[in-house]
């Protein structure tokens, strides 16, 4: 069976390293990027099945903006995205609730750091199954 490819975008190299190692152990093909610049192009090359995005990178909501932009692309409207952030979920949307933000965040799942490896795996599987179904 072909390995699913997961792309992680975060400006924290340590997080990239740890998460990549964990996900590889779970049997995924992992590529990483430390900023959203060039991610779209590399996505065309790498063709990942799922994206893990950090919110706060160079700017406060670089991750969110990128997710919204991505979802506007043709054929990528339903591309699975997991958002991971150091901020608690109540804070990440500038005071908005998760429910409110879900409409435009364009992410499927939000996870607060530290991310539990098992839970991450569980969510990835959930999204991949949903995509294939």
């Amino acid at each position, binding site marked *: 069976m072909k390995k699913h490819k997961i792309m992680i975008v975060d400006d924290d190299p340590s*997080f990239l390293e740890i998460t990549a190692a964990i996900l590889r152990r779970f049997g995924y093909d992992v590529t990483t990027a430390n900023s959203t610049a060039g991610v779209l192009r590399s996505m065309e090359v790498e063709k990942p099945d799922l994206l893990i995005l950090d919110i706060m990178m160079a700017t406060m909501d670089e991750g969110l903006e990128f997710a919204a932009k991505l979802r506007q692309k043709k054929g990528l409207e339903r591309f699975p995205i997991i958002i991971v952030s150091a901020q608690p979920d109540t804070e990440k949307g500038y005071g908005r609730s998760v429910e409110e933000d879900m409409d435009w965040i364009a992410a499927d799942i939000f996870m607060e750091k530290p991310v539990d490896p098992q839970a991450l795996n569980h969510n990835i599987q959930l999204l991949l199954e949903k995509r294939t179904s």
Partner: protein
Amino acid sequence: MRFLRRLSFQNKILLITLAMVALVVVTGAIAIDRVILPAMEADVTEGAWKIARGVVDQVRELPEEGREAQLRARLKPLFSLMPKLLHVELLDRNDSSIFRMGDDECRAGMEVDGFAIVGTMENLVVKRPTSGNPVYQVLLQDPGSSPPETELAVRVGVCARSLEQISVQLFRVLFTVTLLVLAISFFLTRGFTRMITRPVDRLMRMTAALARGGLEEVVREVERELPCRQKLQDDFLLRDLGDSPGLCPLLIGEQEKGAGRENGPPHPSCGQCDFLGDASGDELSSLTLGFKVMAARLRAYQKQLQRHYEFEERLLDACPDGIMANDREGRIILYNKGAQRLLGYTPEEVLHKLPVQEFYPGREAQNIKKALLSDEYGGPGTLLDYTTSIVNKEGRTIPIRLSAALLFKDGEELAVVGYFQDLTELRRHMSKLVEANIRLNEANERISRLNRRYLEMLSFVTHELKSPIANSYMSANALRQEIFGELAREQSLMVEAICRNLEQSMEMIKHYLDLSRIEKDELPVQPRPTCIMKEVVQPVIEGLGGTIVERRVSICVDVPPDLRWNLDPELFRSVLGNLVNNALKYGDESGRIRITVADLGDRCRMEVWNSGPGISEEDRGRLFRKFERLHTSRQPSTRGTGLGLFITKTIVERHRGRIWVESLEGEWTAFIIEVPRDCEGLIGLSCRNSSTGGVMHEKAQDHDR
């Protein structure tokens, strides 16, 4: 005018009286002259005639020879018998004396020719000389002859001096009596007229005194006459009256009760007063009483006015502000002590002397007048809180706040009265206040700058700390979950220890983040109908399951499974988690914890009870303070930020609820929360009944077991 005329009437009465007396006197004189004297003369004449006839009879009877000697003998006793008979002379037809006897002195008059016939009787003619001594000549005439021939003339000198003396005496008496009557009538008339005119005169004097404005004089005059006054000088009743108007209690009574004299005297002391009886005597007394009443009333009014005036004077002087008034010409007519203090002039230097313009610098007086008449400062004729300056005696300019008013009488401007306040002190205080305020503002700014920096640092440090710790925890957790292969027992213990410590660190970071949000007032509260059991209690107990097992604590949960309450589940998980965590940390090992939630109708009550050492009364008050950590003997090594209960309390209060602690030392501790039902007025975001909906959304926390 009538009184004056009445006064001049006095002289007329006097003159008339005198004239009447004169008339009586003249009448008396005439009566004496015309009636009494002739009667007396007739009497004398008759006496003289009788004597003469007696002499003539004697002469007739005697023979011619030896007549002389015999006559002398016969006449001698006659002379001694009749004292009025002065002398006897016989004259012949040729008027030559043939016999003479008696006093010769009175003969002198006989020589005179002019005789007036006094009367005739039979053949006798009685004559009397028109002047000189009163001598009667009796002529013995032959009545038959015509012209009657005188046979023998007998001159008899009868003394008529007594008659003259009587007449003189009569007139003298008349004169004396007249003088006496005149004098008596003069004084009597004068006395009577005085009796009439004196009260009138007094009234006139009083009126004149009143007209001159000498009220005091009138009052003195009137009061002196009150007969009871002296008697009552020591009367306690009178003393009770104090300095009430006038001194006559009757008058005071009248003044107070109106005319009520029919009901007896208004004051017990009036019984001693004879004035009441007098009053009804005559109009003058009534008038005087009227005067007295008027005087008493005037005096009372005057006293009242005086008191009023004195009070106003004292009021003016007591006023710390300056008060001045000037008339239309600008002359100062009122100047109080406050103004004196401020300006330095004495009232004598100012009153009716200095014009008001003198006190203001430059053309300020005109400006004030203009402002007074304008609409800007409280309407025309009124000036309110006008800030200007005034120049004192030494020439120093003093800043003042001036209020003034135009006073009118009959629509005409009468005076301007001004009240002013020294602003020097106020300005000094103001500038001090302003300085203090500036310093305060600076300090405030420094503090808020510091606070901002503290918040920035707090938030920066915690955020920056969070990422490496989260990364460490993630990797340690991956190791613990044996994703990278099975661990040896000791390795597993180490990893477990790393995880536990990192969890504690993360808990602390979470507290600091919460604190930073509270301090920045950025703690959003998003209440929604929440199932307490499912969304709050269960996740918390599950999250702490490891610790519960570790400390061998038995947990009893008494929560209605379907109780829903409007609150922020996320925040309340934090609240309950903190309380249960505390119960585990500070309660008895192998002890009991009880979580009770109950719907009290208008509020929801949550209680976390644990057996344990309890909290002293003194410590209970400090519990909810920021950075407050209690030193418990049993758990000296427990780590914490001292923020948990502060954050808990803040969250509860943002839900308009309250939290408190109850404890029995050595036995148990219970934290109790009450949250009201209605979510209106919640501090934070608006109340919104939203649910999680069908969005695929899972919390990392749900898997954090």
